[in-house]
């Protein structure tokens, strides 16, 4: 099979995978909703909801950031078509996470919320992560991509790494003695970011040498 056919084949199966992935991505929330309906969210349902939505925000963020490396490693370029949906699921979960906090932890006490953000560094950095995901969600449409232009859009969307960084630091700072889970997430984020940095430096160098050669 020649290269073009292969790419076309990938494109069709990525397209078909999309609705399947969409349903899969809904499973964590579906599971929570089902547990809530059955009354089996545990002794402290608010804690369960906060932890689950926080965990899934971070997981979706990291899965989203893994798409591009995976695309390079497998050569399946059309994987990029799944990235927006995954990123929006991260945003969806952080919205739920924040909603649980606003409704059940603070019951819309905006003054208390503001105090909490200013006084507690883990809340502050979580908020920073949330706020940096907001422009990404807004500019996630094709229209916005066109309006911004590919280069600017890509630069803006590097904020996803910043949000990931905020997310893992938020987690690290809220833990009291068991750092194992936040450390796992930090390592994954570092590997993903490291891969991109190394690759882009290599590419730049290659570009330089080829341009020298052509001279």
């Amino acid at each position, binding site marked *: 099979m020649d290269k073009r056919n292969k790419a076309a084949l990938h494109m069709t199966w990525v397209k078909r995978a999309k609705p399947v992935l969409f349903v899969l991505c809904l499973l964590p929330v579906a599971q929570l909703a089902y547990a809530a309906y059955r009354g089996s969210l545990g*002794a*402290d349902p608010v804690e369960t909801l906060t932890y689950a939505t926080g965990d899934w925000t971070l997981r979706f963020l990291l899965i989203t950031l893994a798409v591009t490396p995976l695309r390079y490693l497998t050569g399946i370029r059309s994987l990029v078509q799944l990235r927006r949906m995954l990123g929006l699921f991260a945003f969806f979960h952080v919205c739920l996470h924040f909603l649980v906090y606003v409704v059940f932890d603070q*019951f819309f006490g905006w003054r208390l919320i503001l105090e909490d953000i200013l006084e507690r560094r883990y809340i502050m950095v979580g908020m920073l992560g949330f706020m940096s995901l907001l422009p990404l969600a807004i500019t996630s449409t094709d229209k916005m991509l066109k309006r911004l232009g590919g280069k600017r859009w890509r630069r803006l969307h590097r904020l996803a790494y910043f949000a990931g960084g905020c997310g893992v630091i938020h987690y690290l700072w809220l833990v*009291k*003695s*068991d750092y194992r889970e936040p450390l796992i997430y930090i390592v994954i984020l570092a590997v993903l970011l490291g891969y991109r940095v190394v690759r882009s430096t290599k590419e730049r160098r290659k570009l330089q040498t080829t341009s020298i050669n052509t001279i």
Partner: protein
Amino acid sequence: MLIKRQDDIKPSEITNPSLYARRREFLKGGAALALGVALPVGSALGPAYGAAKLSPLTPSRFNTDEELTPYEAITTHNNFYEFGTDKESPAKLADSLRPRPWTVLVDGEVKRPREWDIEDILKQFPLEERIYRLRCVEAWSMVIPWVGISLASFIKAVEPNSNAKYVAFETLVDQEQMPGQRSNLFGFGLNWPYIEGLRIDEATNPLAILGVGLYGEVMPNQNGAPIRLVVPWKYGFKSIKSIVRISFVEQQPVNTWQVQAPREYGFYANVNPQVDHPRWSQGQERRIGDWLKRETLMFNGYGDQVAQLYSGMDLSKNF
């Protein structure tokens, strides 16, 4: 009267069936042990939750009449790091704890240092039902019907001398029984043994008890079997579990969480809505079972009994 109230509550109303089945399963394993427990009076296997009943129980004048937190919640939502750092692990893992035979070493500045057998403690001191609020530093709370003995009477019996300014408590250290002690979490975990302390006048306050059960039954392992401290005007971490040693000392003990994060946890740890914690605002709390929070009371609502212990002290410094 109080005991009758428990009879009104059917276990099926409190405990969801699958958990109930799981507990039965768990108890089958521990049945030999449970039967071997020589309780002072009437050690029948209680029908309600399966654990051995404790009786007779004297009701206490300190009991709150607030709605009790269900048995299921009290026994599945535990901070007991010896069995893991999340709240579900203790209920799942604590069956490895062997609460019998059990001894408590009493030493230090006392006339009668002695290794107490848990059975002797249960025989010698009257059991009381104490329905107390429990307020965790993580801003959640419960109402728990403890069974316990007065700590003041216990202290009187061991006769501390005038050098005994503080009481230090220690939890069991045993990696085999307590899986949470196996890993030191890259050096960030708690130091074992878990240590807590009280000033002697705090320890002899009538509110302080050594808890040996809840809901009229023997203390479940995950709640600190067979014997634990209950000091309801302080954050939950002061109420040390599975005690193996009580020492009377001159110097103020350094408690485990104070070592872990001195900026966050102090020696006194009195419930105080005015003194914020770096992680949690302490002004409000979520009563387990509620969705929304309620106001936290000074000294967890026990100010009448304990406020005089701290008169003249700056509680924002002595947090």
